[in-house]
């Protein structure tokens, strides 16, 4: 991702006073990375849009608590990932996911014929997809992911390994068989 995510301090200061123009400017600065993160984690574009809205309502409500420690994007990203994972939990997809994942020993023939990474990512269970995205792309640690998911660090690590094993099978079926 090559978006510029730097925000002037004066804009943050104005947003803290509740200035709607400043808050809109923050929204414009972060709407795409927040949506992108949410879309990679959530099942549907509609869910990702809802996460985008919930994230910014939380930003408006809590911007006064942002103390300027670390990049503002890091703070917003934390809120976005938390909202996206909450949505996953709320949908009670975990149990279904695990069943789907267990049953996914080998990709179906149409998939094995070769798919791109984008589609392979969609084939992952929601938890595995969330972990691989948050860890490998967004840069969250296993400790941070575990805390947000309400699970253990071991769970996060095992989901990451499962995600890579599955991606490997989906992307290069021949190599996976060796």
């Amino acid at each position, binding site marked *: *991702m090559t978006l510029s995510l730097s925000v002037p301090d004066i804009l943050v200061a104005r947003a803290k006073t509740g200035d709607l123009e400043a808050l*809109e400017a923050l929204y414009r600065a972060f*709407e*795409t990375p927040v949506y992108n993160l949410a*879309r990679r984690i959530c099942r549907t574009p509609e869910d990702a*849009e809802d996460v985008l809205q919930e994230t910014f309502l939380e930003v408006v409500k809590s911007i006064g608590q942002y103390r300027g420690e670390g990049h503002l994007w890091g703070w917003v990203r934390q809120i976005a990932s938390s909202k996206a994972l909450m949505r996953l939990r709320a949908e009670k997809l975990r149990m279904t996911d695990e069943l789907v994942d267990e049953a996914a020993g080998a990709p179906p023939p149409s998939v094995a014929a070769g798919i791109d990474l984008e589609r392979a990512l969609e084939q992952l269970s929601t938890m595995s997809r969330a972990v691989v995205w948050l860890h490998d792309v967004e840069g969250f640690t296993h400790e941070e992911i575990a805390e947000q998911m309400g699970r253990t660090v071991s769970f996060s690590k095992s989901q990451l390994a499962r995600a890579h094993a599955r991606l*490997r099978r989906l992307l290069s079926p021949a190599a996976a068989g060796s």
Partner: protein
Amino acid sequence: MHCTIEDLVALRDGEGSVWARRHVGECADCQAERERLYQRVAQLKALPTLRPPRDRWHAIRDTVVAERSRKRRRWMRSGLAVAAALGGLMIVIPMVQSPTHAQELAIVKDSSAQLETVLRDYDSDSRVMSGREADLTAQLEDQIAVLDGQLSQLGESARADAQLVDLWRQRVDLMQQLMQVHVTRAKYVGL
């Protein structure tokens, strides 16, 4: 025996076992597998950025504005209630006829305690203020702090003394002014 995907992911994250590290150094297959892992992560990072299909700012702004209106109405109601309570105090206090110093002291202390409660409930620390309001509030709080210091110095030795009553009255007066700052703000600003 080759490294598992768990071993390779752990190695990448600097957490691999000594055996896995040594094995990858010697095994061409595992080196190739590790390279595929690196490439996969690089490809993940290079995936196109997905953009929101619709502008959600207007919905967010409408929600924020509605919430602010709701808070404003609530604070106007509570602000008027506090103003009425203050008015009551201002009427009742002078009506006390020729009390002794001890009685007078008890009355002003009670008034002070009531105002403390109202101010604490108002939780002014978590509210946004203008610079002028913040400055005025800070000045009043400083004056109250000075009075508290004087009251503390007088201590028990001056119990029921006229000077003590006077200091407590000054304290109540300052707290009423402080409350007035918040009430005015709640009524007209709604924050």
